[in-house]
């Protein structure tokens, strides 16, 4: 009987609990898949130069991963929008003329969108053709590191062994992401060290300043953006290093000053825009190569050099790798969205 009050308290507290199901309805995810409303768009002509956008709409019966690919079949330019909402409309499926895979969408281009579903490959559908009457203006602002249109004498190409690198310089063999030219790295890892070649862009050579002047010290607000051309070789890996002049003496000392970096497997074919906030970079783990930060903290107002490193990550089966770089630029508050 003494436990009765306690049991009563538990029962009363239990009655206060929410009793409905946790999370979304399973029926909405694993129920029968049906297209309730086919893919359509709110306009067939769009002028991005005056801020117009295209809103795609479709309705399906369940939440499932989908991908909307807007493509110019003649140039290969693609914009990819992904989601898993069952009501595909509004901001989740709005296109402002920007691009995911370069080249850029231009005035006069005719594009068509395809909506496909990972788990229901037979259910893909297409929009009507859309004509671009005005292209999206290239965003202004930011700190352009290199557009590779000139021979860029300030950029420094380097490799572990010259016989491993077959190309490491400005090139124009295929269309650039923006403009006419780009940087191309091509080589083979012969000695199993993973590293093939690299490109160093210093603040002094590209900006004429001792460090990159980003006018913002918050790594979460500053984005680095670069178009990367993938050649489909599975071993290709790109490391982007941000070297800090921690003591502001104008020289980067790799054994004492920090390098913050980020790694991307380049597993696509064509030009793709990579954008990331500098908060996603982490201190180098390479002993003697920037793994010690004299000040013990990431300081983006002290970035003195950028390095693009080409690695052949697997190195066993197919150790030939290559990639292209174009339009490397820092932006503040938002990613570069051409």
């Amino acid at each position, binding site marked *: 009987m003494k436990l009765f009050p306690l049991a009563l308290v*538990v029962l009363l*507290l*239990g009655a206060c*609990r*929410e*009793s*409905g*199901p*946790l*999370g*979304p*309805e*399973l*029926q909405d*995810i*694993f*129920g*029968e898949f049906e297209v309730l409303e086919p893919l359509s768009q709110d306009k067939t002509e769009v002028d991005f130069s005056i801020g117009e956008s295209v809103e795609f709409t479709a309705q399906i019966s369940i*939440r499932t991963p989908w991908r909307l690919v807007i493509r110019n079949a003649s140039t290969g330019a693609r914009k990819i929008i992904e989601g*898993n909402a069952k009501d595909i409309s509004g901001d989740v499926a709005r296109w402002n003329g920007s691009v995911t895979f370069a080249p850029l969408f231009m005035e006069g281009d005719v594009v068509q969108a395809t909506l496909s579903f990972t788990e229901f490959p037979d259910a893909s559908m297409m929009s009507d053709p859309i004509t671009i009457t005005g292209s999206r203006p290239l965003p202004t602002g930011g700190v352009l590191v290199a557009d590779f249109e000139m021979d860029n004498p300030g950029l420094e190409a380097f490799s572990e062994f010259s016989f491993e690198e077959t190309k490491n310089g400005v090139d124009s063999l295929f269309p650039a992401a923006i403009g006419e030219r780009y940087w191309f790295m091509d080589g083979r890892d012969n000695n199993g060290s993973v590293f093939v070649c690299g490109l160093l862009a210093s603040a002094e050579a590209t900006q004429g300043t001792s460090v990159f002047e980003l006018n913002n*010290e*918050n*790594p*979460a*607000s500053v984005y680095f953006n670069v178009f990367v051309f993938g050649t489909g070789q*599975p071993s290709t890996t790109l490391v982007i290093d941000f070297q800090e002049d921690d003591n502001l003496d104008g020289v980067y000392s790799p054994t004492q000053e920090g390098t913050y970096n980020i790694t991307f497997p380049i597993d696509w074919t064509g030009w793709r825009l990579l954008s990331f906030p500098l*908060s996603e970079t982490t201190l180098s783990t390479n002993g003697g190569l920037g793994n010690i930060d004299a000040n013990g*903290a*990431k300081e983006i107002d002290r970035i003195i050099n950028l390095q693009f490193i080409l690695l052949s990550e*697997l190195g*066993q*089966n197919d150790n030939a790798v290559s990639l292209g770089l174009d339009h490397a630029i820092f932006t503040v508050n938002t990613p570069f969205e051409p």
Partner: protein
Amino acid sequence: MLRRLLLSAAVCAWAIAPAFAQNKVQFGGAGRLLIDNAQLDGTLLETDTTTARREMGGSALFDLGITIRPDDNTEITAITRVENDIDGFWGAGIVFQLRQLTAKGVIANSVRYGIGDIDVALTPYTFWNNASEFRIGQTPAFNVFRDIIDYENFYADSAWRQQGVEAEWGLQFNRGIQALRFRGMIAKNRQTDFFTLPDRMMAMGQIGLHVNNNLRFHLNATNLFEVAESAQFNTEESATRVISLSGSTGGEKEKIRWRLDGEGGASSVVFTDIPEAPVDNIEDFFVDVRGTVELLQPRLELQLGYVDVGADFRSPAAQSRRLDVDAPAQQFGFYTNREVQRPLNIRDVLLDPLVYERTITPGLQAFVPAWDNVRPYGVATPNRRGLDLNVLWNGDTAGRFEAGMQAALLTELRGEGTTEKRRFVDLRLQAAWHLNRSIGWKKDLSLHLAGRYQSTSRDGTPGVSEVALNSVIAEAGLTWELIDQLDLMAGLMWYQADGNEFIAERDGFNQVDFFSAYTVDASEWFGSAGLRYRFNESINLSLQMQQWSGMDALSPQTDYSIRNVLLLYNMFF
């Protein structure tokens, strides 16, 4: 009344002062040499031309601990580690580490304190380091590696290793109540990046009221909180607070002991200045009541418990998991020609210390339903209600047998994605037979057996299939002292699971926002046999041959097996 109580109180320090009356400087430590030669085999290799077929690795390490006692009330312990990978020739792969630095002592003969690396545990619902999966038995051949995992990851029983400061203080009374105890700890859980990621702190406190030897109450509290101001560009912060009241009473009459333990409490998760966070605090409570009867003749212990843990009950220090199921394995970490990360198997769980976590995390971490779907976050697993029945038979008077059984029959409090609720059954058995005592041998000959059966079920609803997931784990071990100090050790673990589940995916605020379908039809076995020579109680050398084999009916093309020979020299001093 209170004034009279306080006046009759005597301030005292707890337990630690006498321990200091020893040598001023004391050395201790551990050493280990491990060489492991493993070979990959199986169907996988018919299509996988990339993964290396053999891996030989290992390391030699030496931990040197120095304990200095400058006076009777102060003790400083430092443990340094020198480690060299087995392929780090001539010192090329050598690593020096400070593994532990702790200062502890007694202030004014009243307050016990500890600073630096400290081990902290409270109750299973507030601050508790739960055992990980596949620890169902006591097979010595496996315990060798379980001990290494525990040592490497600072798992001391149910305590989490923290870096901070703790203090303990007590009052003893001559009348009324027996004693009051106060405990507190604060530690850093995460370091700020100075810009956007703030410091995260872990704090706990406990007030203990000892009415008499048979009646005790504890008020327990923990708080995992962020300090927004510690990051220059951050205003967001979150805190998870837990408070509980636990009590324990008991008695003894003739040949029967009884005990009643209970704990009840609540949690609250608060988000501040985070626009996308839930508007309301996430709050819930739990209740746990257990009655135990112990018969002294025969030595039999029976325990019946009732638990009710709310679906939104959050207690990071009690729900954090040891095993990181998404961690890459140390050996053959990637496989197939696409070099994808190899999922962990029971061999990795039993042998690899690097797949375990050392820190308390605010979110509910991922788990493998086929390995443990009933209580993946320990007894504090949210959304569980039901009964626990534990039976422990401590053996006959000659100590020949001992056995235990635990059963849990639970249901969910709230369905996940449906109004239907899951039902869980967890049944465990352990037994040890010391054969040498049965046949009058002086040398050790012991057989260890253990098993676990789990089932999860939920009725289907229109458009959504039912849930039916079953798993079995069995473990057997043999230890035989062949000649003086030379043991034959053998162990076998078998695991099988089949069925389906829906795995809840959670957002950054621990709220379920999606489900993924999960299907399993797999079995694995791991065997280990070898010899161990015991130089003395704390130094031994063992040579073991091991084989792991797995079969996944859903992707037979990636079936593989690993066999290895392992040399282990272990020393504690």
